[in-house]
C-alpha cells in the first residue's frame, strides 16, 4: 500500500523554499509551523498551497492527498478540515496542517497494521480492534451501524482507507462534542436544541 502523505510527491522545487524548520515565535502567531516541524511537512504544505496564499483550501488538500493509491472524497476532506481547524471555513494554515499531517500518519499506520490480510480494507472484526488502538471507545451497535452504512454492497462490509478516515474523524469528532457537554456525574451529555444542531451539522453536512 503506498503511503499517504508520509512522503509527499517529491518536488523538484524543494530546494527553492527557504528552509524554515519551524518558527520560534509560533506560539505568538495565528498559524505557523511549530518549532521542530519536520521539513517534509513544511515542504508538503508549501507544495499543496498552489495559489500561494498561505492557506490550503479543500480543493488543494484533496488534490494533494489523492496523489497516492487512495483517493479522498471531498466529504472526507471537509471532515478533516473541520476536525483540525474547528471552523467551517475550509481553510488550513501551517499549524493545523501539521497536526493533521501527523494524525494522518498515525491513522495510516494503524490502518496498515490492522489490515492483516492486506486487501486495502478493514472489515468488521478488524475495525473494533482498530478503534481500540486509536483510543476510541465505540459501542458494538455503533460499529455495526458504521459498517452497514459505509459499505452496503459487499457481503462482508469493509472500509477502504478513505472511508476509514471518514469514520475515524466522525467518531472522534462526535465523541469530542459529547465530552464537551458531558456531565461527570451522570455520564450523560445535555444539549440545547441549538447546540445540538450546531455540534452535529458540520459532520452531517461535510
Amino acid at each position, binding site marked *: 500500500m503506498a503511503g499517504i502523505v508520509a512522503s509527499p510527491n517529491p518536488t523538484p522545487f524543494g530546494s527553492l523554499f527557504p528552509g524554515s524548520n519551524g518558527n520560534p515565535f509560533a506560539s505568538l502567531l495565528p498559524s505557523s509551523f511549530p518549532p521542530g516541524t519536520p521539513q517534509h511537512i513544511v515542504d508538503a504544505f508549501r507544495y499543496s498551497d498552489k495559489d500561494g496564499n498561505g492557506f490550503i483550501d479543500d480543493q488543494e488538500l484533496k488534490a494533494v492527498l489523492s496523489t497516492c493509491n487512495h483517493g479522498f472524497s471531498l466529504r472526507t476532506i471537509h471532515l478533516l478540515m473541520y476536525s483540525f481547524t474547528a471552523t467551517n471555513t475550509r481553510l488550513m494554515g501551517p499549524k493545523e496542517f501539521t497536526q493533521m499531517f501527523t494524525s494522518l500518519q498515525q491513522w495510516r499506520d494503524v490502518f496498515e497494521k490492522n489490515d492483516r490480510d492486506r486487501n486495502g480494507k478493514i472489515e468488521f472484526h478488524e475495525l473494533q480492534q482498530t478503534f481500540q488502538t486509536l483510543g476510541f471507545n465505540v459501542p458494538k451497535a455503533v460499529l*455495526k451501524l458504521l459498517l*452497514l452504512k459505509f459499505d452496503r454492497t459487499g457481503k462482508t462490509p469493509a472500509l477502504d482507507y478513505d472511508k476509514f478516515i471518514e469514520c475515524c474523524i466522525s467518531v472522534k469528532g462526535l465523541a469530542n462534542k459529547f465530552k464537551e457537554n458531558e456531565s461527570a456525574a451522570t455520564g450523560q451529555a445535555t444539549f440545547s436544541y441549538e447546540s445540538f444542531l450546531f455540534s452535529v451539522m458540520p459532520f452531517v453536512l461535510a
Partner: protein
Amino acid sequence: MSCKNKSPFINSLTHFILHHQLSTTMSGYNNNNNNPPPHGYGYGYGYTAGSGAGAGAAPPTYAASPYGAPPPPTASPYAPAPSPYGAPQPYSQPPSRPGDKPHKHESAPSYHGGGGGGGGGGGGGGVGGYGSPFAALVPSTFPPGTDPSVVACFQIADQDGSGLIDDKELQRALSSYNQSFSLRTVHLLMYTFTGSNTRKIVKPTINCSEWQGTQILKLGPKEFTQVFYSLQNWRAIFERFDRDRSGRIDASELQEALLSLGYTVSPVVLDLLVSKFDKTGGKSKAIEYDNFIECCLTVKGLTDKFKEKDTNYSGSANFTYESFMLTVLPFLIA
C-alpha cells in the same frame, strides 16, 4: 441531471406532481396554507388523538393539511409561535401529544409542521387514524382513500414487483427530465420515513467473522405515501419562496421556508446549510430544489431525533454516549 429513463412512471409521477402544483398555484401563491386538502385524497382524518404515538407516526396530522403546517385558517402562513427567536421554547410550540386536543396545534406547526408525513416512525405501530381499527395490525398498506395515482405510482416504481421500494427504485422514480436526486438524498428520505422500522423488514445479524444479512431500507405503501405527500409539500414550499423563479432560494428565503415548516433555525446553522448546499461553492449563496429537500430532511430528521429525547419540551435533551452516536451517525452516512 437529465434522466435518460423514459419510463411511463416518470412521466406520470412528474405529471402528477406538476399538475397538482399547478392547480394550487393557480389559485394564488400567497396564503395557500389555508386550502382544504385536495379532493380525492379522502383525508377527512382530522387530528386524531392517536397521532404522535411513539415515533410520531403522523400521517393523519399531515393529511389534514397537505402543506404540512397544520395551522388553522386564521394563522399566518408562517404560523409558528409569537417570537420563535426570543421564545423560551426553542422550537416554537410543543406538538400535541397523544390525547391532546387538536387545538394545541393552533399556535404553531412547530414540530408537527415538519414536512408533513410524520416523524421517523409511521411504522407498523401505526395509528388508528386511517379509519380502520385494524390498520395498526397491518404492516404497510395504502390508507383508505389514498389517491389512486399514488397507488399507481407506487406500482410503477416497484419495478421488481416485490411490494417494497428500495433506494434505487425510488431514485429512478423521483428523477425526471429536469430533476435528479442524489442517492444520499434518497437515503435520507427513506430513513426519515421508515426510521426504526427498517429493522422489521430484515433483521441484521452479525457474527464476528461474517456478515449475515444486511439492513436494507425499503418503503412499503404507507411509507411511500408519506414520502410522496411530503415531497409535494416541500415542493410547494420551495416554489412559494422561489419568488423570482430562479430555481434557487437564498439564505433568508430558506430561513422563512424552514420556519413555515415549523423549524426555527439560527443564522449560524442556516449559514452552514447554505454553504454546504450551494452548488456554486459559496458564490450565489442559494440552494436548488434537490438540495432544499436534503436540507429539509436533515433539519427535520435531527430535530425529530432531538425531540424524542427532549420529553419535557424544555429545549434541552440528555444523551448517553451510545445514544448520541446512534442518533447522529445515520445522518452522516446516509
